[in-house]
């Protein structure tokens, strides 16, 4: 590779945020190593700074023409929008990670900060890369960091959850890789664009292998996306991890993986969309139904959110399943609806976990029934939690409603109406479990004044995060145009 081509590779555009995050990760790691233990918070603030810079960088380059560098990285619409989203989400998560660190009841390891950064870097790589090798490295960077993050607190549940995540995640990676190896074998290429050009021939020559590798990759990614029946690690890992980490798994990790799934499956199997994507539809349906049914009887809040994230993964899979019928003319619809729902879902998730972290730290809330211990003056907290739950449920005035509506419209437009109908039908079932905590919070006879709860330091950062998430949830629910308008100018691929 000549210097000339390097100079014209627009590396700043394609991997600016990625490199900023990676560099700050390394820096923070080093600083953390050298720093005396009493500077607990410094690494986190530094990480925050790094993320902020990366975010600003990403925003600045948002409206640029898509670029393609080193045959590996792109800055197309999906990449840049998801980069912004992931950075924003990480920022929010780290913000309330700060409060977790401060809480004295929780002897928190400091490693969290740079692990978050590494994981974020992995996620960024997943959304910007168009080469199987890079994608795999990004995926593993994210996964390995996540395994550690989950197990980081070294509590028993955390270790168990981390281990299950690791084993199943490892299997998932291997499945994905095994599938990818066949693709490579048939094409001799690892670059998605190149393979996409060959995919028609590929399907004509080796349909069996294509289906095999598609299923392998789908199941491998399914583990990461916690699709039914590869979702079993999810509740355990979410329960073991600290709230911010669980939020990370549910939002950042999921967003990056969904973006990657969309891109990889679409590009690799472009020539056989009609034949392979029905499997995705089936998986989406299964996940939606089973995820929602699973959540019906959950009593623990953490597990409820975990299982609900399984169900939501099913919803998010719908646009990908729609690729079966989509033509290049309607791809923007798929991208739009997926990304819009990702944004809405991630924000709501982070908000919910932020609320949960306050609840857990102050009132040791574990089960839904414990919510009745909330003193009545905490009406903003209750309202915020209710708002997030309603957002999950897809109630009007929250972003969840618009997101689901858009999914439905996409399903209708792309002649897979049954998926949309199923989505709404199971959403109705989901009302039951999303509203159960709300009911407990607002039952009038249960209001008692039991003071301030556990004495913990003020959780300003978490509260900021909650406020921000509420704002975005409502804003997108009332005026989704601000996001959709932006999307309409995006060149997704």
């Amino acid at each position, binding site marked *: 590779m000549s210097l000339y081509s390097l100079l014209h590779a627009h590396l700043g555009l394609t991997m600016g945020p990625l490199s900023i995050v990676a560099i700050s990760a390394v820096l923070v790691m080093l600083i953390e190593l050298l720093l005396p233990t009493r500077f607990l918070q410094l690494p986190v603030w530094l990480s925050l700074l790094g993320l902020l810079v990366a975010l600003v960088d990403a925003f600045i380059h948002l409206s640029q023409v898509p670029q393609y560098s080193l045959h590996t990285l792109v800055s197309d619409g999906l990449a840049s929008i998801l980069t912004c989203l992931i950075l924003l989400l990480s920022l929010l998560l780290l913000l309330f990670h700060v409060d977790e660190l401060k809480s004295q009841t929780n002897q928190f390891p400091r490693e969290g900060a740079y692990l978050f950064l590494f994981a974020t870097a992995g996620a960024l790589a997943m959304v910007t890369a168009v080469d199987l090798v890079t994608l795999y490295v990004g995926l593993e960077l994210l996964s390995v960091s996540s395994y550690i993050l989950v197990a980081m607190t070294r509590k028993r549940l955390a270790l168990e959850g981390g281990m299950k995540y690791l084993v199943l995640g490892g299997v998932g990676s291997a499945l994905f890789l095994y599938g990818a190896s066949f693709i490579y074998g048939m094409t001799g290429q690892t670059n998605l664009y190149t393979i996409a050009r060959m995919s028609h021939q590929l399907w004509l020559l080796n349909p069996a292998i294509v289906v095999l590798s598609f299923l392998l990759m789908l199941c491998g990614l399914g583990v990461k996306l916690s699709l039914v029946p590869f979702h079993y690690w999810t509740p355990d890992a979410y329960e073991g991890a600290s709230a911010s980490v669980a939020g990370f798994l549910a939002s950042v990790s999921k967003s990056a993986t969904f973006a990657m799934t969309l891109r990889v499956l679409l590009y690799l199997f472009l020539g056989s969309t009609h034949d392979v994507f029905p499997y995705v539809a089936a998986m989406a349906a299964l996940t939606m139904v089973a995820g929602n049914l699973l959540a019906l009887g959950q009593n623990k809040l953490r597990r409820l959110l975990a299982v609900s994230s399984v169900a939501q993964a099913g919803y998010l899979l719908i646009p990908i399943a729609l690729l079966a019928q989509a033509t290049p*003319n*309607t*791809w*923007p*619809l798929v991208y*739009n609806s997926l990304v819009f729902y990702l944004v809405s879902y991630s924000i709501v998730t982070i908000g919910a976990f932020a609320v949960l972290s306050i609840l857990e730290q102050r009132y040791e809330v574990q089960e839904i029934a414990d919510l009745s211990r909330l003193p*009545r003056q905490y*009406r903003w907290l209750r309202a915020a939690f209710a708002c997030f739950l*309603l957002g999950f449920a897809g*109630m*009007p*005035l929250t972003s969840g*409603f618009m997101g689901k*509506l*858009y999914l*439905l*419209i996409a399903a*209708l*437009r792309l002649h897979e*109406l049954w998926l*949309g*109908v199923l989505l*709404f*039908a199971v*959403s*109705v*079932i989901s*009302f*039951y479990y999303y*509203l159960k905590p709300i*009911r407990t919070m*607002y039952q*009038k006879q249960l209001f008692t004044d039991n003071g301030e709860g556990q004495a913990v330091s003020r959780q300003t950062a978490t509260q900021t995060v909650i406020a921000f998430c509420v704002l975005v949830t409502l804003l997108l629910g009332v*005026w*989704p*145009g*601000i996001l*959709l*308008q932006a*999307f*309409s100018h995006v060149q997704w691929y």
Partner: protein
Amino acid sequence: MAFLLLALITPLVASLLVWLLPASSPSNNVQGLKQPHRSHEDHFIWIGRVAMSISFLCMFVLWIKMRLLSDVYQFAFSFRWFQFSLGFHQHWTLRIAYGLDGLSLPLFSLAVLLGWIIFFAVRPPGEQIRVYTGWMLLALFAVMSSFAAIDLLTFILSMELTLLAGFFLILRQGKEQHWDAALQFLLYRGLASVFIILALLGLAAAASRGGLWPASYAVLSAVLFHHSVPHIVFLALFIGVLLEEAFVPLHSWFPNAMQDAGAGVAVLLAGILTKTGLYALIRFGVGMMPQDANDYRLLIATVGIINLLYAAFAAWSAKDWRRLISFSSISHMGLALFAVATLRQTGMLGALFLLVSSGLVSALFLLTSEGMFKRLHSLEFSRLGGLSKSMPIASGFLLFAALGSLGLPLTSSFVGEFQSIFSGFAVLPGFAFVALLGLLLSAIYSLNAIRKTTFGPVLDSTLMQLADLRWLESWPLAVLSLFLLLLGILPNPFAQVALSAFHHLRALGG
């Protein structure tokens, strides 16, 4: 336009105001002590009263300014909201758009009137006033907005909003077991809105031209009038309507919710919320898919008649007022559904009259019985009897409501009933003959209940000592009765306005 906007926006603004005002700190009410009569949250209910009064006044202006015999949407205004992209250069532009025509104005007015009455007639326990007022105003805004909407998404969003507000109202205002009732409400109506949303999206898709989907009612009905829509769309709408309107056999949520709801919430439920379904059927089914409605005429009529009879029988054996009221409402809606099935102008008028008068009658029933409930703490027939002795005014109103419910002439219900049956004889004579039975059954159950409540010997001495309704309690009832009578005696202004919405049915031979 200004008046419609004002009428719509006032409850919304008031609701936001209620939420944003600080909740007064709870007074030192130790549990077990009686609530003081005046509560520290009283000012909240006054917000509601003022807001609904403004809407109420605006409603009169709207009636005065309504132009007759014009089937375009009047007072219309819209804001561009956002657009869903549907692919390259294909999108669905949505607006927040409001306007009224002959079909929506009466129902809109019903919502405003009942909302106004609710705030003056019902006062929840002191601790709940703020929450109650906030949600009630929101619910009223939502239901008014769903009647006044002339853009699909505006309608869908408003409909969903009623769901949310209704859920919280039932949850927080119920007497007992409210979680079950609230949940049932949510699940049934949630499912209903799923079907309706599906149907509406189907409509938009069917009317799409060159990748652009229309969303405004006017465009939709203009385009769809000459094009057929897949039957599935109509069926989805119909099932949605059945759920929304609590039609047998999908009605279980309604009596349950009514059983436990506070009076204001019950009025909202029986008086307004269960009217949105038929509105949707007339607006979208008859207005935009007349051909499909015609094809499914027999189905609609059958369901209507079954409801009419089933609910009447169920009301006959009801053991308390709330159940009776809910089933009588279902029964009336069954007749209205049958009237819709006739697809004639007269039938539509009848359905509209029935909708409005059923709302008024239910509200009158509920508020009067609430007056009794406050004194007796029970509405079971076995605990009542001979109330005419001690509460003549309340008994009078109850009797009047019963007469309205059985469709006595000079009340608006009669107008609706005879129009429905008249129109039925023209196209579905067999069904119309069965519908006549409804006249008898409604008399049986209404008068049965009256006999058990206000007539007959006084059960025990406690019933003798009850105080009658005070002036403050009875004037809202008088207003309701007045409207019921007014529409029954002088129905023409109302009918002329309503007729203007059904020009298109002439093309079908209606």
